């Protein structure tokens, strides 16, 4: 009930639909990711219905969107794990990658993969397939091995780092490759000598970071999450930090309802020389492990008493000493779709002003809870980043009203978020269709431009229906002008 109370109203701007259609009943759009650079925003996801990785692109800051898709090139194969990147010195140059999976002959569990990698330098012209050139990362082994979970880090010019996990050398190891010519050729940088299956990138100044999970002590039911870092743009790497958490209680990487192995997750963010990695622990709660340089400074759950009984896919964004986390949390039972159990979930966020020592929230990102397919579950990650003072979010609403599940995109006004989290502002305002959403620690009075009191609201989260116009919000000695168009 606490979660429902806290997540009563959406704090972010009105959600934009990145799917553009209702999906077929009991199917979903899944594995949502996002990248941004300048006015270029990329949102990508898997369309289970079409069997494609979909890329939705905006080159004007989100005012207009177009899309393109990558499909399997061989019958019996399928695509997944979409990843996107924007070249930081050229927002018209974008990258779209994923895994093309094929079934091996060793039974239904014998899944093989190759990492496909596509480049387009045409900006808005990337809506045309002819503007793209595509290759496979590293050597194309003709689907002899398992390859999975590639992530991209555009470094400027034509250089991109790519990591992925593969059993090319027996164990599942994380491999790093680089291209300096937009994917025409690839150089192996090395591989991590531990069993590891998920690694994300982070960049802060000239430092590059890669997270990893570590199953080298799973015999004792311990999973590690850690990072390595590079001070020369990814050519050479140093040990960073690592923490282990126990799954001895459950002896599984899955959560009670979400059937995916949620505990293999390890998203990373870095700011200055501080590093944070998020993961889902054995209580299925979102955690953050934090370092100053390579010195560990703490591990803690973000929101143990609210934000969902199961909290999966915690994603991090940061600037300065702030960390912002977003995850999907289970809020209750729902029913089923076909033979698949479906729970009720919401997408929430929390903010920390002191690099994860304390957290404010959770608050709502998704405007509503939504039925979420739990087995088979579809999602491995969410889109969450901070750029230009705004938080951007993208996620999948699996089944809205049991059908039409959409991939949604929204953004915040981070100037307000920063002031609110710092305690300088007693309330936080988000513009949405038909009014405003307010998160407040104190009562707030809303006046129109003539000074007439429109509404007094108590502390908490609330949607206030307002007509277009100019309003002034007061709380104590703090006031804020709001213009609704």
């Amino acid at each position, binding site marked *: 009930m606490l979660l429902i109370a806290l997540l009563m109203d959406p704090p972010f701007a009105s959600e934009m639909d990145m799917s553009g259609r209702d999906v077929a009943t009991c199917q979903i759009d899944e594995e949502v990711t996002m990248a941004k650079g300048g006015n270029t925003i990329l949102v990508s996801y898997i369309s289970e219905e079409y069997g494609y990785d979909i890329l939705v692109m905006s080159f004007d800051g989100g005012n207009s969107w177009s899309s393109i898709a990558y499909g399997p090139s061989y019958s019996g194969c399928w695509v997944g794990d979409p990843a996107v990147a924007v070249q930081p010195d050229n927002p018209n140059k974008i990258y779209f990658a994923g895994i093309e999976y094929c*079934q091996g002959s060793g039974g239904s569990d014998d*899944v093989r993969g190759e990492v496909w990698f596509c480049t387009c330098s045409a900006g808005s012209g990337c809506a045309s397939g002819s503007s793209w050139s595509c290759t496979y990362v590293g050597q194309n082994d003709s689907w002899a091995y*398992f390859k999975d979970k590639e992530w991209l880090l555009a470094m400027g010019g034509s250089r991109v780092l790519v990591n992925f996990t593969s059993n090319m050398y027996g164990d599942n190891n994380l491999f790093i490759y680089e291209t300096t010519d937009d994917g025409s050729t690839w150089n192996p940088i090395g591989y*991590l000598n531990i069993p590891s299956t998920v690694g994300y990138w982070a960049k802060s100044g000239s430092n590059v970071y890669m997270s990893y999970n570590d199953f080298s002590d*799973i015999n004792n039911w311990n999973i590690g999450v850690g990072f390595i870092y590079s001070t020369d743009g990814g050519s050479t790497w140093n040990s960073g930090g690592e923490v282990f958490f126990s799954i001895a209680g459950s002896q599984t990487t899955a959560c009670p309802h979400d059937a995916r192995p949620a505990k293999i997750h390890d998203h990373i963010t870095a700011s200055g020389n501080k590093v944070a990695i998020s993961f889902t622990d054995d209580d299925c709660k979102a955690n953050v492990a934090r370092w100053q340089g390579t010195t560990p400074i703490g591990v803690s759950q973000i929101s143990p008493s609210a934000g969902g009984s199961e909290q999966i896919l915690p994603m991090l964004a940061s600037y300065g000493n702030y960390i912002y986390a977003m995850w999907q949390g289970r809020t209750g039972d729902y029913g089923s779709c076909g033979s698949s159990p479906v729970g009720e979930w919401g997408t929430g966020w929390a903010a920390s002003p002191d690099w994860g020592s304390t957290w404010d929230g959770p608050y709502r990102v998704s405007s509503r809870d939504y039925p979420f397919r739990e087995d088979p579950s579809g999602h491995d990650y969410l889109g969450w980043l901070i750029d230009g003072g705004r938080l951007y979010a993208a996620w999948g609403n699996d089944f809205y009203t049991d059908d039409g599940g959409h991939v949604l995109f929204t953004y915040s006004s981070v100037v307000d978020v920063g002031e609110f989290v710092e305690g300088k502002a007693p309330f936080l305002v988000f513009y949405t269709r038909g009014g405003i959403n307010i998160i407040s620690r104190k009562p707030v009075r809303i006046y129109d431009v003539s000074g007439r009191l429109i509404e007094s609201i108590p502390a908490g989260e609330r949607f206030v229906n307002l007509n277009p116009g100019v309003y002034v919000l007061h709380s104590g000695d703090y006031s804020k002008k709001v213009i609704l168009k």
Partner: protein
Amino acid sequence: MMLTIFMQIALMGQKHGAPKDLPANQWYYPVERVEVKKGSLRLEADAGKVFGEPVIFRGQCMNSEGVVLKKENCTIYYRTDITDVKGGILKFMVRGKGKFRISVYSPLGYTMKTITLKGEPVEVSIDLSKSIAITQHGSAGPLRIVFTPLENGKFVLEVSNFVLEQEE
């Protein structure tokens, strides 16, 4: 804001043939760093539960420890076509010198053990029911047993045949 989506489906990938299958029921190792010859270490069990033949590996690997990223592969693994793994115990004997991580991948997922060998034969038992999913694709395909040297320098690893004891 009005959102307009222009949907274009483009098959940008390259056509290719069927997935390449590496031969099963044999050892894989980096031939440039590891020598292999027939071994003598045996573990007796019912015929239907035994697979593989004894082998001795001798190698020299200089970046097994103390490096963040490896370029030189020193891992030795036995790839099977066994897919009907329902739990049970995987047993084998090892003898040699050096520290190794033994990883076992199977349709049940992943489990592992670390051993240090000092010349005496050691029986290794791995409880496959302790396997967990470490990828989003659930299980890990046919049974695969992986030996990774964890110390720099020369190593010797003799591995017997394998015994997979499962409940009927």
